[in-house]
């Protein structure tokens, strides 16, 4: 157990801080402090490319794919400095944090050399096509089908809750490639370009007023035969591995955002005097504790701690989702009715102040990537070895 940093870690921190500071106070100062995930997509695309040129877009990846072979500590340090510098949400979050590592694990050499540099350079923005109208919590009920026609897959079906699809170039989707297969068998993990006639995208407006999620309609959408990650029919394994990454190392950067959010709530409490209210103080302290424990939980999970590393990983998603939901409620209680007011907007538009948007958007955190209920099932079954529930025989 070593909670201090080495000389070279401190040097890495200084380098990252310098670069970020200069970029975000110079050419990209308009993006500094941005928190909304659908704002300024064009500028954020340029930011992805700027990061890529300076090899700061995927620090943990091998150098040959545009990374820096950063250690876990260094990745953590970069995430801390990125947040401290007020870096905007990453437009290519899904490509950088989820798909990239999955390609590193499951990709062929050809796939790695095609897809990874494009991600690190900010040239291919990715989104994720898992859920469908009848396959939400029960992801294995996927109906979208893909059939090989010559050297191309033809894909038909509908995906929902496709985050940021409207800004993306590619989607990784889970489709049924074995006709009449059921459940987890017969699915494949396909990489599909979005700029084609067979793909249409309909943004879904959310309770925040924004449209981060989309419906994705696939009507004879096409992709090359070798754009399958992992084995044909082995898509479930790849998809689950990716979800594991979603619960893993990708979370460190997210925690830095949480830090900024908690700091904003504390600043608000100081400003309006509620920081003196003993009830609010308890909740702020509990939020601070929760955030710190997430940090050390993530370090335990990623640092190869032998003591129940899996359990640390498996309990992580529900922890942060519940933490952020509580923080949103705390923010509202700190601000009181103030939080319910936004500057006047044109009729029909709707946008709330940052902490109110946190309150609203946190309601999705406990749903996407597996609801809190699904997480508890998973924890009980995989973490504690309890029996699965009997499945029914109704059709969705």
């Amino acid at each position: 157990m070593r909670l201090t940093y080495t000389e070279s870690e401190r040097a890495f921190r200084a380098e990252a801080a310098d670069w970020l500071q200069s970029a975000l106070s110079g050419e990209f100062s308009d993006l500094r402090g941005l928190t909304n995930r659908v704002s300024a997509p064009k500028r954020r695309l340029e930011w992805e490319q700027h990061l890529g040129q300076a090899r700061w877009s995927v620090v943990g990846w091998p150098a040959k794919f545009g990374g820096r072979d950063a250690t876990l500590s260094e990745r953590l340090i970069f995430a801390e400095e990125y947040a401290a510098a007020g870096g905007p949400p990453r437009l290519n979050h899904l490509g950088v944090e989820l798909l990239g590592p999955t390609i590193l694990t499951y990709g062929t050499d050809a796939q790695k050399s095609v897809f990874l540099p494009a991600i690190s350079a900010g040239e291919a923005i990715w989104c994720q096509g898992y859920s469908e109208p009848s396959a939400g919590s029960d992801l294995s009920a996927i109906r979208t089908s893909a059939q090989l026609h010559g050297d191309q897959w033809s894909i038909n079906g509908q995906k929902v809750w496709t985050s940021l699809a409207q800004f993306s170039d590619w989607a990784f989707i889970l489709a049924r490639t074995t006709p009449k297969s059921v459940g987890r068998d017969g699915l494949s993990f396909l990489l599909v370009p979005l700029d084609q006639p067979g793909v249409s995208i309909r943004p879904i407006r959310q309770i925040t007023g924004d449209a981060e999620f989309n419906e994705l309609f696939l009507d004879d959408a096409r992709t090359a035969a070798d754009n399958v990650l992992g084995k044909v029919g082995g898509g479930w394994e790849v998809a689950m591995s990716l979800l594991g990454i979603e619960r893993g190392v990708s979370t460190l950067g997210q925690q830095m955002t949480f830090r900024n959010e908690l700091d904003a709530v504390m600043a608000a409490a100081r400003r309006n005097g509620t920081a003196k209210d003993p009830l609010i103080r308890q909740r702020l302290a509990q939020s601070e504790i929760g955030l710190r424990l997430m940090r050390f939980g993530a370090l335990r999970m990623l640092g190869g701690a032998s003591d129940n590393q899996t359990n640390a990983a498996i309990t992580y998603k529900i922890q942060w989702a519940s933490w952020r939901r509580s923080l949103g409620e705390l923010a509202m209680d700190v601000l009181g009715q103030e939080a319910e007011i936004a500057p006047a907007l044109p009729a029909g538009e709707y946008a709330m102040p940052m902490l109110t948007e946190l309150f609203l958007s946190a309601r999705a955190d406990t749903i996407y990537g597996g609801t809190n209920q699904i997480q508890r099932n998973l924890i009980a079954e995989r973490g504690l070895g309890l029996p699965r529930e009997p499945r029914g025989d109704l059709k969705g």
Partner: protein
Amino acid sequence: MRFAFSEDQAAIHDAVDSFLTSISTSGGTRLAMDDGTGLDRPLWHAMASELGLTGTIIPESFGGSELGAVETAIICEALGYQVAAVPWLASAVIATHAIARGGSDAQRSEWLPRLAEGNAILSFADKGFSCQNGLVSGTSRFVPQGCSAEAIIVHADNRVYLVSTDTEYCLMSPQTSLDQTRPLAKLTLDHAKAELLAAVGWDEIEPLAWTAIAADALGGAQACLDQSVAYVGERVQFGRVIGSFQAVKHKLADMLIGLEQARSAVYWAAGEIDSDGDDARLASHAAKSFACETYAECAGHAIQLLGGIGFTWEHDAHLYFKRARANLSMMGAPSWHREQIAKLILPEDLCA
């Protein structure tokens, strides 16, 4: 002692329920949201003309039906169930209550008949103002449906004033607010001429106001439960309707447990107000804090149970979720109300 609706009360309950079920739609609410007013005019006019609901707490001599707090709660509950976008709470309950109870004969004659007909819309401002020499000054950013109001009931130092919005000393500006079904306007008064409603203190207005908000919350929470139950009875995952999973069932059970207590709270408070009971203040603090928290929880659970759908603008779940939040903070957060209860049950001189 009897804790059940009288026959008349039960009849009003049924009549209001079936009227609103037939006429109020979330489509109407959404139109009122989109134009920024939070005012579903067709519904408001139907309420006034068809059932006389705008005059329920107005004395018969001024054209009302002179009903009590229990009936008020019944109507609030029904409107909350529909997330109706009408100024009922602000105008027909709080402002009307203030004038009916505190106004002079002249003031009552001027306002109550028009309020009873639904032709006058008023709102209220509960904090941020002071009065000197009959002139009121201050700012509040929290005046419900204030832009539709021709006059405002203003609280200052426990006195209650009536201020017209149609003067140069009054500035009312629209705001985008979280809950668009009852948008909050910003009111600034700069030495505005004010009429004192001399016969009432603000503290006498509060119990009915708190109970009315609580009743709105009760209705909203019931709607969240009903919509969730309907959805989980149809949605299939893992080959079963999701309503057969204990995680889902137990969450819904918890909602019902909260609701049943909220229901006791609201009608206990209303009953105490109607019988001028010693516990009217305690009960209305309890109702406001408990029912509003229950609503917030039920609205949150509904989104969770609905999954992604519940998070969309298209689904009504967010209307309830946002109104629940607005009810929670309007006229005192739950923790403030509980602290007031603590003051009542733990008198200071009895503490070590």
